[in-house]
């Protein structure tokens, strides 16, 4: 069959063109030509309008989005970790709780979360950041625990 007239193939190639829009024009055209040739070759024996055969061949190809993603340039080596790095959530929670204090409970939780966040970040092999936040949470957490104790100690009894 001639794939150029098939509506399923047309639709697929249109989706591929849209998905590959970020590629330079000559690479996008090359990819479209490769896929067109593939379809022509795969459906050579199929009778015209054989929808089941077209569907099977398109399924084996994968989605246009998948193919376009494979055609996109891979990130340079060493970069991917940084590209996907995110701030550790526990580190943020630690700092927020340390600041809010909550009658000392926030400070205790800030320490728990802060230390845990730092170990997670250390083990994340560069995929997580926020160790500064976690350290700030830990320092403020300790202050939030010791300062009230010192103040209570220093106050003369009876003033409470």
């Amino acid at each position, binding site marked *: 069959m001639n794939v150029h007239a098939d509506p399923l193939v047309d639709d697929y190639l249109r989706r591929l063109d849209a998905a590959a829009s970020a590629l330079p024009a000559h690479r996008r055209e090359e990819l479209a030509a490769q896929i067109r040739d593939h379809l022509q070759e795969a459906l050579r024996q199929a009778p015209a309008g054989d929808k089941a055969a077209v569907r099977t061949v398109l399924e084996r190809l994968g*989605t*246009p989005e*998948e*193919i376009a993603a*494979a055609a996109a340039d891979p990130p340079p080596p060493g970069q991917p970790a940084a590209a996907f790095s995110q701030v550790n959530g526990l580190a943020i929670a630690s700092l927020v709780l340390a600041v809010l204090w909550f009658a000392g409970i926030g400070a205790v939780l800030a320490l728990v979360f802060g230390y*845990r966040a730092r170990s997670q970040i250390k083990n994340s092999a560069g995929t997580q950041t926020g160790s500064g936040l976690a350290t700030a949470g830990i320092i403020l957490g300790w202050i939030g625990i010791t300062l009230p104790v010192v103040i209570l100690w220093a106050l003369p009894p009876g003033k409470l």
Partner: protein
Amino acid sequence: MLYMEPGQARNTVSQLRKGTLEYCVLALLRDGRRYAFELVRTLSEADGLVVSEGTIYPLLSRLRRDRLVSTSWQESEAGPPRRYYQLTDAGKRALADFSDEWTRFRDAVDALVAPQAETTQGEQGDERAR
């Protein structure tokens, strides 16, 4: 906290697959040139190597841009001309380097991971030779 997520093994294998696929393409060209559709179908028929045939085409383009393969057009008996791929000298070197490294790597991993390493290795060898 969890350091190894449930999908990790599959993810690791998928990364390995991605990294080795281009050398599988080069290996298929070791004995001479092939046209794109033939390459793609051969690769997709090897169990567990390729999930979507379409993703091989960008790889073929990349190999050509990196000058590991070269292409030529040739008329086919039936239908439009076909684009054939063949190894360049750089491609042959890349394949030879990879083959050595891969054999060492595979043997080391098999020795540790697979309890019956000998039988599975034999089967894979046959598969590739065909």
